[in-house]
């Protein structure tokens, strides 16, 4: 019975996804330069990874990015969603304004915009100048370049915000009304009703944003011009995969790296799922 519902998914899985998935898994154990047939080399790619300086740089950069930008982004998204959920005039305008950056997030224009804002004479340095802080271009400073990308991710909090709004909408009004009859104040209602019933959505956003942050590519590619610089300080993991695969024609190594990423994300997601039993409340239990 269930399998009738799952028919499109199965066709998609077998026809479109499984083939490339399996192909990339196999390629991870080969030396493939896109021009001649792949050659089996066993675990060599993985051994090479362990000794590859740039690989570890990419790991570090990506981990920092995930651990810093995801909580920040979700924090803003939740805060604004709650503020914008009810009782404010001009609500839809505010919501659209906050969502606007997400629409631009992956576009070509961002590179230039970000360079202007964080450049030597950009807005950020201008404002810092009022406080007497003189800095050069943020994008050329290895210790600051990554923060511009974190800011970029946080700036695009519109997507998780919309999901939070949808989740907030799904909480039945009667629950709030009943609790008010019982004398509960605004804060009490927030912590006893809103948050618990929102936990499946918080969890959803957490997983989605975490996976998306692990795989972030366009922002780094476009802002650093594809180099991951300066000095690999913005070398996101998928950017390095792209360089190895599409620029150096080293697709076997790139596939190996991709599967390592998949395993890490799977582990992180599984860990989150396990921990979620403690704090996520599902209506169907």
């Amino acid at each position, binding site marked *: *019975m*269930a399998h009738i*519902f*799952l*028919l*499109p*998914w199965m066709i*998609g*899985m077998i026809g*479109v996804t499984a*083939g490339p*998935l399996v192909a*990339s898994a196999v*390629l991870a154990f080969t030396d493939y330069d896109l021009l001649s047939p792949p050659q089996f080399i066993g675990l060599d790619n993985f051994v090479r990874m362990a000794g590859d300086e740039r690989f570890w740089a990419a790991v570090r950069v990506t981990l920092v990015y995930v651990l810093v930008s995801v909580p920040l982004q979700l924090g803003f998204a939740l805060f*604004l969603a709650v503020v914008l959920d*009810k009782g*404010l005039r001009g609500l*839809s305008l*505010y919501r*659209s*304004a*906050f969502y*606007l*950056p*997400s*629409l*631009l997030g*992956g576009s*070509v*224009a961002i590179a*230039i*915009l*970000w360079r*202007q*804002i964080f*450049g030597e004479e*950009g807005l950020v340095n*201008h404002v810092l100048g009022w406080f007497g802080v003189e800095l050069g271009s943020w994008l050329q400073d290895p210790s600051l370049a990554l923060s511009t990308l974190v800011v970029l991710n946080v*700036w695009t909090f519109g997507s998780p915000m919309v999901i939070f709004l*949808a989740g907030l*909408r*799904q909480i*039945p009004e*009667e629950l*709030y009304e009943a609790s*008010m009859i019982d004398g509960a104040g*605004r804060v009490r209602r927030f912590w006893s009703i809103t948050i618990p*019933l929102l936990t*499946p959505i918080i969890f*959803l956003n957490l997983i*989605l944003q975490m*996976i998306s942050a692990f795989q972030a590519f*366009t922002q780094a590619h476009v802002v650093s011009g594809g180099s991951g610089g300066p000095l690999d300080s913005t070398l996101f993991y998928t950017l390095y995969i792209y360089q190895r*695969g599409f620029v150096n024609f080293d697709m076997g190594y790139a596939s190996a790296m*991709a599967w390592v990423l*998949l395993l890490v994300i*799977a582990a992180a997601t599984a860990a989150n799922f396990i921990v979620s039993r403690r704090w996520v409340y*599902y*209506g*169907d239990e």
Partner: protein
Amino acid sequence: MAATFRTSTASRIVRHVVLVVFVLLMIYPLLWMLVSSFKPSNLILSQTGLVPTELTLDNYADGWGALGSPFSLFLGNSLLIGVGSVLGNLFSCSLTAYALARLNFRMNKFYLALTLMTIMLPFHVLVIPQYILFAELGWINTYIPLLLPKFLATDAVFIFLMVQFIRALPRELDQAAMIDGAGPFRIFWSVILPLMQPALITTTIFTFIWTWNDYFGPLLYLTRTELYTVPVALKSLVDTETQSGIGTMFAMSLVSLVPIVLFFIFAQRYIIKGIATTGIK
């Protein structure tokens, strides 16, 4: 809508002020882009402020016809793919999510895990085998490689999103309907789907916007300029080697923002309208 707690005028004003400041910070980059699109191309990068010294409409005039066809062609192409993708995702992901969230069967958890796994692999390593597949089928320079996967529930993100939304709904609803003699299809159609409206709206919004902004897929599969979607067309406006064309790119980027912003403003009202019934009683 029942915002029944009272707010004092003072706290309302404070809220508005804070929000307005925040909004300005958020849209400053867009304001800069808007102003720059009216500057002559050579002044854009050399002037970092918001106040332009010279204004011109050239970027809009040039950009519109820059690739040989009017830009509205690319907007139309993106619209077509966007709408198609939305229909595909709504159709396939809702069916799949219902099965995974509500129907108990042996492979349930495994399929869910498999679905999640497909989100976790970076697309660059899947691109080449997929391209070879579609090239063999002769589907290059058609929209099939971009649309067909949507009808086959390959956008696992939305499956997962819908699963989470469905799981937030109490099982009593299903049980009540089953007592009335409804089978799984009936429950799906009459009970779950209507209550899933926010998830469906969200899927619609994000599918449309993500496919609107999708670059790599259209780049690879569409080599004829007339088939281009907006992101590919925008990228083609700037010459990598000389960096000329930034003005036209800004102008056309803003033009392209208009449909999706309008779409978003329109669609989000449905989130406000919310669920028809709460379903508790």
